[in-house]
């Protein structure tokens, strides 16, 4: 009796299925990571009051001029947050992210009471650069739980022009 020849294409197919199983694990790991950092059911309904984004004078630690959404790269700016609008028993922070996802300015995390003296959250120029890098800057006020930010309760997007 002669055994039927093994179809080698079938072997390729099975190999591909093994790769697919491993790939599914990769994608599931991605989903788990996503759920860990974006846990469902974290919507508290809280809203942080962001008064605006103003030009910032670092020497006097004050804001100048009107609320704007676009700045030249030579100007510094800061978001002004009304911390008193939030409940006292939560932990929050505020951060600026540049277009590469780097944190370029922050306060907290702490309770809103402790942040009351830091209403202006400015962006900082990253060393070794002289000015801000152009692109989209995102300002967020985040609510913490278990030491991790779980919800964005305030957000502003600012464009830094080239």
């Amino acid at each position, binding site marked *: 009796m002669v055994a039927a020849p093994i179809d080698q294409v079938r072997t*390729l197919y099975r190999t591909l299925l093994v790769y*697919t199983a491993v790939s599914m694990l990769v994608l599931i790991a991605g989903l788990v*990571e996503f759920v860990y*950092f*974006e846990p469902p059911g974290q919507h508290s309904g809280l809203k942080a009051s962001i008064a605006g984004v103003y030009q910032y004078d670092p020497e006097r630690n004050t804001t100048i001029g009107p609320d704007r959404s676009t700045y030249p790269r030579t100007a510094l700016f800061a978001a002004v947050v009304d911390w008193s609008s939030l409940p006292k028993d939560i932990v929050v922070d505020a951060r600026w992210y540049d277009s590469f996802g780097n944190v370029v300015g922050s306060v907290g995390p702490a309770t809103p009471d402790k942040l009351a003296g830091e209403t202006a959250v400015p962006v900082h120029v990253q060393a070794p650069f002289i000015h801000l*890098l152009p692109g989209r800057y995102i300002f967020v006020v*985040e609510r913490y739980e278990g030491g991790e930010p779980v919800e964005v309760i305030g957000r502003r997007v600012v464009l830094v022009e*080239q």
Partner: protein
Amino acid sequence: MGTAIPRAQRPVRYTVAAVISVALVLVLVASSILNYIYLDTVAGRASLYGLLVISFIALGTFTGVRVFGRDPAERRRRFIRAGVLLGLAALVWLLLVDVIVFTDSAGPSVAVVCALVCLPTTVFGLLVLRTLDRNETEPWRLVLFATAWGAVVATSLVIWAESLWQAIAIRTLVPGPGLDVSTAFSAGILEELAKGSAVVLLFLVMRNEFDDVVDGIIYGAAIGLGFNFMESVSYMTNLYAIFAPEGVGGDAAGFQWYARQVLGLFFGHATYTAFVGAGVGIARQLPDVRRKVIAIAAGFIVAIAAHFSWDAWISAFPIDKSGFAIVEIHLRSLIITGPFTAALLALLFAGVHIEGQALAAQFRSEAALGTGAIMPEDVSILTNPWLRFRQRTRALGRGGLRAYLLSARLQSAQIDLAMDRWHRERHEVDTPMDAEEDLRRRAIGLRRELAAAIATSRG
């Protein structure tokens, strides 16, 4: 194989291909309309008007050929010619739009320089693919079509969808790892679907040039190289524009070039989309529809996972500012994408081995038939790319350029015949039986022409 298939016997895959093509054109037009409404850019307006004009011309051509063309064979030829020309028009138009989009940030001169430095590496990548495809090299026209699709069509297909996903994610998610994962899913899913659609179309329409897993990997990788080319130009010009005022624009663009065109030439889009090709190529040789669908879906899943893992976990390997950074950059690619590339190479080499064995068996069987299409002495030559090349150069020496070209066409016809025999033996063909006889006649005719060309040259 030039035999026209009568309408009644035309395989259903042509209908599927037509549906996919229409869907892709609709996505492109919808993307342009959204660009026009929300961004109101020159590129958005140009792509919208251009695509609509090309669509109207296509409709007019189709109607005209149907009304005035009497002979079905002539009508088919005109349809193919019109389709190719209009396809090229759409491609050129989208390329123009891409040029506007990608040169917007840094200006045309920077974009031209970036494109010029990316060109040699991309060509090198294509030549490597051609070398790997040793048994039956795919025609340049299809490989270049695949590359152009990756560079022009796939990038145009995803630009709006990715922007939309990103805009929603930025407004709803907590910045940080969660947002990074979301962006990675967006890139993996949308880009692989846009690139992979070309592999599926080639599989459906160009069945004679899409034989197995090897062909799928070659087409997929070519699409990936094209996409990588355009993405490199885009990132280089964009980062140049960002960092030029700080005096390090050239460094930023240069680093991108090295990361994407040297390190990431094969460890990136070429690997990802080659997996889609592998799935489609394996599906080409499976007997039942259920397994075909599973294989194609499997190819897409592996491609998406490979792409996702790079985009999602690259930040888990931060690069030092010390001298060790150069080692870290290479290790990062090796650790994240390396396993996928190794897995792909395993499929490719296994595929080349299977294809080589099958063709050798078919060369021998055809030679034994004594039809004259393949002679017994041809078998060892046809199975070895180096001997094939030597045979062509010998023809060049004996009969000039015409003999060289005829020899190349003869080898190609003989390999096509063996491939057709292999597929027919495995019940993988949906073309009429006389297609094989056509190939046989073609090979015999070319052999005669070659002999005549050499004789004339000597005479």
